[in-house]
């Protein structure tokens, strides 16, 4: 009975969405663009420490810690460069993972890994972005952002707090989900919750933004504050595993040079990323 109602509700909302989408397609796309900007492109660069606490079904806890630098290549929310310097666990300490992210569809990201014990700069074949990032419940794509052009977006509901969007992949065979629902905060445009569904409207994965902080920064010599997700939780309902991601020491617009994202700094990390 319950499933029936749920299906019916979904059917109705779907129909509703489609009707709405027909007149207001730009609105859904506009919201997604803004949300994409807010979660990945605030300021022209940023720096912070990410701590992931992974707890599996049996309650075993693993921890991943890394400092991350990010720099935008233009002001249009396109290509970015990322630099992650690992602090824990012991077997990956001081390793560096560098990504030159390309938003052009069909263009693969460039990825490098530096292994200090071998002084080895390894080029990593870019692959399935929907695989776990460092063994956590966050996927590679959750960290560097899913390309907004990979899905069609549909505004299904507007509540007091959220724009609720349904996102359907254009190439369903490249992903493990059928669609996902994003709850975008109406004021900040930050994604507050993402629910991933498999076939048969089976919810199997949830990411929640559990703490937002206003981070002060300077933009063109003016004081600004960027609302930033400083704690988020990813739950894999199939495996029973949960990852809490904390983002601390966050700074924006610190003037990270483009050089940082080259082999020179891959082999010898800059001071600002080690501290």
């Amino acid at each position, binding site marked *: 009975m319950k499933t029936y109602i749920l299906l019916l509700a979904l059917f109705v909302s779907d129909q509703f969405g489609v009707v709405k989408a027909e007149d207001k397609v730009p609105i859904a796309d506009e919201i997604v663009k803004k949300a994409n900007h807010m979660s990945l492109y605030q300021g022209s660069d940023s720096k912070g420490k990410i701590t992931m606490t*992974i707890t*599996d079904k049996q309650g*075993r806890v*693993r*921890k991943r810690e890394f400092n991350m630098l990010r720099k935008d290549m233009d002001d249009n929310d396109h290509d970015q460069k990322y630099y992650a310097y690992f602090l*824990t*666990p*012991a*077997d990956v*300490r001081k390793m560096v993972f560098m990504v*030159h992210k390309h938003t052009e569809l069909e263009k*693969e990201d*460039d990825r490098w890994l530096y292994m200090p*014990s*071998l*002084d*080895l*700069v390894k*080029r*990593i*074949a*870019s*692959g*399935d972005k929907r*695989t*776990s990032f*460092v*063994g*956590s419940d966050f996927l590679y794509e959750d960290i560097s952002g899913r390309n907004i052009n990979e899905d069609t977006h549909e505004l299904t509901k507007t509540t007091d707090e959220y724009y609720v969007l349904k996102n359907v992949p254009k190439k369903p065979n490249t992903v493990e989900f059928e669609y996902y629902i994003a709850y975008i905060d109406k004021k900040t445009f930050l994604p507050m919750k993402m629910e991933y569904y498999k076939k048969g409207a089976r919810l199997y994965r949830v990411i929640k933004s559990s703490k937002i902080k206003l981070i002060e920064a300077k933009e063109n010599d003016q004081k600004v504050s960027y609302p930033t997700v400083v704690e988020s939780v990813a739950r894999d309902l199939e*495996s029973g*595993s949960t990852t809490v991601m904390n983002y601390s020491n966050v700074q924006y617009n610190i003037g990270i040079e483009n*050089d940082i994202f*080259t*082999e*020179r700094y891959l082999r*010898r990390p800059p*001071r600002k990323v*080690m*501290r």
Partner: protein
Amino acid sequence: MKCCKVLTILSILIIQQSLWAEEDSLFEQFAPLEIHGFYELRGGYRIRKDSYEKDMSIMENRFQLEAFAYNDWADFKYKGDVWGDWVTEQADYDTREAWLFTRPTDFMDVKIGRQILTWGTGELVFLNDLFPKDWQSFFIGRDAEYLKAPSDAAKFSFFTDIVNIDVVYTPQFDSDRYITGEYISYWNSTKQRLAGRDAIIHADKPNRWFRDDEVAVRIYKNVNNYELALYGYKGFWKNPGGETASGISIFPDLNVYGASIRGQLGKGIGNAEAAYYQSKDDENGSNPLVNNSEMRYLLGYSQEIGKDFTAGLQYYIEQMLDYDAYKKSLTSGPAKDQYRHVITLQLTKLLMNQNLELVLSSYYSPSDKDAYLRPNIKYKYTDNLTLEAGANIFFGDYENTFFGQLQNNTNIYTAIRYSF
């Protein structure tokens, strides 16, 4: 001894700097001292009878300590291993790293001291990387980290808009940690049979400071994320590449010139590398006791072929130059082929939230008719505790080929490591 010298120089530099900065105490200046390391037990056995070696292929408990600190002008690192070795029945110590790093100007980096050095595009195949390797450690199943042996060197890096240049100067020749017969049996060309602990190689290694030195240069540039590089090396064959008339192994002079490219190719990463090995002490190939000059070529491609599953395939060729002169001058033993072809395949699969890692590295030579398989399984029981098991499996039709001579060293091993 050499490491003592480096350490002394390092400590003098450190003390000097700290005296200049009078306002800070020595401790305050290096306040963020990071201490890490691991303790490991590792044991392995031969699974074939080897009349020249012990049954145990590896048996050791090892402690590694790493200290890192930095001040306003430099980074400092020390990493050293102590281990009890039941194969050699002695306690050992090795300084893996002891260096200082500084950026004196915007366009220059300097790293001085004992350090691990790597460049080139090959995966477990080295053409233009003439820095010391330790294949012995690799073949008996030590961690892959030990494949690279340290150099006592100074590395100067220059960065310009046109190209970047690395210059590595090693004042006293650092050879590979080659197979001596102590841990691993090998083909002894003088005896024309396999040998091991009964015929430990004592080589005559060039060891005069600042005269028996090595220079390695790399000029590189990144063009749209295609990494281009030119290489040059002046030094010695890293393994005994010759012997005297009385049968003592020596390290003849060697110059190497090469180039490489690496970048995105289709869905994966492609790489190509070539190197010309100029054997300076036997330029026309007429001396049968010294290696001939060689050309070496490598083509490689790696791609993700499934979820957390990567495959890398490489084709590698060693071509002996002046082959006719070699054949003519050969007085005893079977002749080597002019071409040695090697295909390598590397498979890596991650499972159980990437806590279980399965790796198969394999080498196969259709010309030598030999092969080397290196399966390895690693499980991260916790963030600190890792369990590992693996094998080094050698096949070959002949006793004198690169991997064929190692057949009796086929071994399995297991390890447990606690890191902190």
